[in-house]
């Protein structure tokens, strides 16, 4: 039962994390390979605050705000870059965050990480069930917000920008402003996912926020279907359940340590096959028609 609760919590956090990336990558066409940096900022913000005595709720709110503000500050200079250059800059940002967390020991304890992060507590209860319910409520409310954004004229303009920035500018859209706002919102929700992660695990260290996590969340979005609300949900559930399912492979004892490597190879293979065979993902955008 506890194991199923664990899978449920991880799924919900991944759904939130992947959906926040989907807003940037799927809707606005921003290839943000550094989304894990905002996840890390959210994790450390709430961890440091709650370890200093603030409540978990305040910590989560602060995680959102600080990550959102970081997204805003990051995008200010970087959004003038386009395509590959933006991707590279975002990747560098995530690495800068990780190195900061690793080296600024006075604040983050460096590679030793932060242990003893308080768990979510409601009316004195703080088990996995409470964490699952909290993650469920937060994820559902966040998904409602994403739906509202996607179906609003704001979401429609994001699609316009993703489709053809040149046309968007010719018709008076302030592309940088739209992208900046999208980055801020995506980063804020990414930070919130990171906050939930920290409170669930109770311990975080800089190496938890590596490139591998970026690839995993990218896979959730691409596998599920970019630009759709349902895509990242399907993608996250599949990635988490397949990843966990691999643990039950009847491997010889000498190979059990290699499960993580098998997982990475499998996900890498899936990503390559997807790009070749079904780039739109499992849940395709309803109007996905290739240029004829």
């Amino acid at each position, binding site marked *: 039962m506890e194991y199923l609760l664990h899978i449920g919590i991880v799924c919900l956090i991944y759904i939130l994390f992947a959906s926040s990336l989907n807003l940037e990558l799927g809707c606005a066409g921003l290839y943000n390979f550094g989304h894990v940096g905002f996840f890390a900022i959210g994790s450390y913000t709430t961890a440091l605050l709650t370890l200093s005595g603030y409540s978990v709720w305040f910590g989560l709110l602060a995680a959102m705000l600080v990550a959102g503000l970081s997204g805003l500050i990051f995008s200010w200079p970087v959004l003038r870059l386009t395509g590959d250059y933006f991707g590279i800059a975002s990747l560098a940002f995530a690495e800068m965050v990780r190195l900061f967390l690793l080296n600024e020991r006075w604040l983050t304890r460096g590679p030793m990480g932060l242990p003893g992060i308080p768990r979510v507590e409601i009316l004195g209860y703080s088990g996995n069930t409470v964490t699952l319910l909290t993650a469920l409520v937060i994820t559902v409310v966040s998904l409602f917000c994403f739906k509202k954004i996607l179906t*609003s004229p704001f979401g429609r*303009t994001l*699609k316009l920008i993703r489709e053809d920035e040149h046309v968007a500018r*010719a*018709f*008076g859209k302030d592309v940088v402003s739209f992208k900046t706002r999208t980055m801020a919102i995506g980063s804020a929700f990414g930070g919130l996912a990171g906050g939930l992660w920290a409170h669930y695990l109770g311990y975080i260290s800089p190496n938890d926020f590596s490139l591998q996590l970026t690839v995993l969340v990218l896979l959730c979005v691409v596998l599920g279907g970019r630009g759709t609300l349902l895509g990242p949900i399907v993608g996250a559930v599949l990635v988490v359940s397949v990843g966990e399912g691999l643990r039950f492979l009847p491997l010889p004892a000498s190979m059990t340590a290699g499960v993580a490597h098998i997982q990475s190879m499998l996900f890498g293979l899936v990503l390559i096959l997807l790009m070749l065979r079904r780039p739109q993902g499992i849940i395709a955008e309803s109007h996905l028609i*290739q240029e004829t």
Partner: protein
Amino acid sequence: MLELHSIYKSFGGNQVLRDVSFALDNKTPITGLIGPNGSGKSTLFHVVMGFYSQDKGRVLFNGQHLDTLPPEKRCHSGLSCTFQDSRMLTFMTVLENLTAIPTPQHGESLVKSFFSPLLVHRQEKEIQEKARDILELLSLSSLADAPAGSLSYGQRKLLEIGRVMMTDPQLVLLDEPTAGINPTLIQSLVKILETLVQRGMRFFLVEHNMPLVSQLCDRVLVLDAGELIFDGCATAAKKDKNVIQAYLGSDGYVEA
């Protein structure tokens, strides 16, 4: 309305526009811009729209200097354009291709989207109505919910005109609107342009189809190797030695 003063533009060592000056007034409904391939027509359009900045010279629209304004700001002054290569938003429906265009929209503010849904809804309804009227005029109503990627090339060209109409511009730069479309659709396009002219819209048209230019344009400008070599009526353009030479060489003949 639109004034260009001594525009120069080069890409590396290639001088694309040299000392191009002219003014378009409100009295001429459609002005044509012709010239051989590579003469600088599309570059001139891009300079006017702000996608390229000129090396020297000034661009004014209704007396306002546009030189320092980015394309998104120029659109608000009443300028609009279509593109030489039909730039469809293929992942959006035909209707969305139009409703996404007006700027600013209340719903583009997230605060208003979440906290003033009625205001957003009211404006959205108006935008949708306007878009449907335009689709009616373009005879594309039945395709409103179809993906834009499924339209034929000619229909895409019409939809581009529709996008322009969503902004109610004063002056529209049309870059080869009839390239690659069949004669029936060209005549539909001509009727649409005439309707829009009656509504007060003015056009600056790049076109290679000379009979069409003669039919539509009261005034024709001719560019050759980045220089303006002719400014006058279409009939005179066809007889002008410089124009004939630019198009077909010294003994050339321009088909009427």
